[in-house]
């Protein structure tokens, strides 16, 4: 018999309302692994990881702002919907 209790790593987590926050741990793990290979001087490793995480999150935030402006303001100006 199988019961419907949540089992970590087996069942999916219901995170549909906070999906956009999942980029934070993903970018942290990505930076840890990437800088583990690409960082030339490991004494500068923590600083490079932090900078890389900020770069990823900043770039994604700028993309989100850009697409929001483009879709909500520029496209309606270029092709106004008939009222």
């Amino acid at each position, binding site marked *: 018999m199988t019961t419907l209790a949540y089992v*970590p790593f087996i069942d*999916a987590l*219901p995170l549909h309302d906070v999906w956009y926050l999942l980029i934070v741990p993903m970018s942290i793990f*990505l930076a*840890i*692994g990437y800088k583990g290979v690409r960082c030339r001087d490991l004494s500068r490793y923590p600083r490079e990881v932090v900078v890389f995480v900020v770069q990823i999150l900043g770039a994604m935030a700028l993309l989100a702002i850009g697409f929001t402006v483009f879709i909500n303001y520029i496209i309606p100006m270029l092709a106004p919907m008939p009222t």
Partner: protein
Amino acid sequence: MPYTLRQMASPDPNEFNPLAGLAALVFPGAGHLVLGRTKRAVLVCVGVMGLFLFGLLIGGIDAIDHRNDKVWFYGQILVGVPTLAVDYVHQNHFKAADPNNPAVIRSGYPGEHRVVVDGRPVWQLLTPEQIDQGMGPPNVPGLGRINEIAMLSIVLAGMLNLIVFLDALMPTPEREPRKSGGAA
């Protein structure tokens, strides 16, 4: 005089090293371990396996599925043995045959449970009483955006391990400066 594994694998850590490359493909960080770069091996392992386990945590075991998500799986397989192991468990312990079409092997729907009939797993419909008791399929698959993010996280782990593999295969000298003043 017997040679250590490190000496056999990496007489010079800055040369082409197929054993380190192979180890990197088997498990994240193993290639750098073979090269003797223990600290980098740990960092790489934390990064790649962190992305891998994070994907599994939010999407469940359904995030790795070579039958239903074949294109995603091509990226995920770059993580190496962990992906193969999870996919094996998923296919053999969480999937079963459709009762109406036994040729179709699929995940369970709500209101079904997995039973083994004549050595073959099959989905069987539950009665309302059994559902009230909390019975159901062995896993709850991720849906929509959560499923996509979970699969993406594991693909990112695979892509990162590809970079790690290339670095282990052809380690560059300037990335790990030699210590000066040591014994000759």
